[in-house]
Structure formats: C-alpha cells, structure tokens
C-alpha cells in the first residue's frame, strides 16, 4: 500500500465573510507540500471562492483569490465544482478562474484543472477519497 493518500478538501463557504476559505487554502498548500494527492471540491457558497475579478481594496482584507490560479504549480491535480451550486447562483464556468497544470517530469499539460461535475460524480469522488477535510 502506498503512503500517498487521496486528500479531498471540501469548500462550502464564500470568501471574506468568514475565515473558512482562507484557512482551507492554507491547509491545501501544506498538504501539497507533503506530496499528498490533493483534490479540491467547491460546493454551495464555496463556488464563490473561484469567481474572477475579486477586488478587496475597499474592505481592508487580503485578496487571496490569485492563489487559486497557482494551485496547479503545487501539484494540485483536480478542482471540482458542483454543477447544481453553480447554476443556483446564476454562474457558469466562464465566471471562474482558470488553473493550468503541468507535470514537470513528463511535460504533460492540462489547460484547466477546474472541472464542473454533477452530484453523482461528486458523491463518487468523495467516497473514493481517503481523507476529507471540510471547510
């Protein structure tokens, strides 16, 4: 059995109103640094974390949204977005950040690891994960 576990980070909160989104991002970066297989899922208000064009100059808080774009460089391979949550909020994948990924060894590239998935697929992914971190 491999020491590498499938980590899933479940994000269900909007950014800025609470600290959950930022805390999740911090733990994702730590997990990735320990060379675990890290995936992220964005459900309910969590889909708002990925909306582009965030500008926090007026609220005196750090805009951490540019970090999502770099997650591919930290070996995060999958960012799943719940289709139902997106649709309930009048959003589409065009409103969300694009996150490229590249395997440094094989030079395999993926243009965007952000993937919109339905409930059945999400349920499957959650069940397949070894550990689920909820934020």
């Amino acid at each position, binding site marked *: 059995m491999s020491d590498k576990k499938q980590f899933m980070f479940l994000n269900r*909160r*909007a*950014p*800025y*109103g*609470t600290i959950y989104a930022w805390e999740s991002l911090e733990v994702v970066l730590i997990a990735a640094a320990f060379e675990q297989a890290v995936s992220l899922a964005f459900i*309910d*208000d969590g889909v*708002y974390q990925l*909306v*582009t*064009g*965030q*500008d*926090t*100059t*007026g*609220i005196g*808080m750090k*805009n951490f*949204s540019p970090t999502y774009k770099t997650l591919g460089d930290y070996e995060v391979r999958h960012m799943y977005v719940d289709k139902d949550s997106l649709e*309930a*909020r*009048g959003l589409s994948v065009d409103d969300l950040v694009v996150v490229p990924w590249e395997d440094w060894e094989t030079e395999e590239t993926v243009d965007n690891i952000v993937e919109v998935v339905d409930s059945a697929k999400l349920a499957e992914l959650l069940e397949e994960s070894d550990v689920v971190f909820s934020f």
Partner: protein
Amino acid sequence: MSDLHTVNKSPFEKNSLDTCLRLSKAGSSILLYEDGVYAALAGTSASEKITGALADRKVYVLEPDFRARGLKADRLIEGVEMVDYAGFVDLVDACSKVQAWV
C-alpha cells in the same frame, strides 16, 4: 421615520434574509453587506426574494463588499442601489434605528 435592516449572511447559507423580509415593514430600507451581497444578484435561486421586497421596500448593497467578491454591477437586480461606506452612514442617519439580522 422607518427602520434600516441590515443583512450580512448569504441567502444560500442562512435564513437571515428570509426572516428580515418576513418581519420588515413596508417603507423600510434593507442594506445587504458582507456575504449578504450575494442576494443582490439577478439570475440566482434567491433573486425573487429581493425583487419581491423591492415592491414596497428599498434595497441597498454595500459596494466595497460587492467588489471584494468579484461581483459585477451589471448583474445587480434592477432597483437595488449601490452605496459606499459614506452612503451606509447616511442611511443610518436617515432611519430611526438599525435592526441587524446577523
């Protein structure tokens, strides 16, 4: 003078907006701020709540919170007014009291 009601929770996560709308009277004002700003967007499953409220109440959204979340002014529900911090203060000053729905 009427009351100013403030809502700072997402309409998708908490029922603060629902209760605010149920218990605020015609002629009062509602200010959406922090995660409450998501209620001000057109084309969502919560949009009808605000369009309904606009029939007899004024609805405002705090611009710095709206912009922080990457939301676009062209998706604002028609009739909702954007205010800045100074506008927030003016609303508080113009109303008899502030009722916060946290």
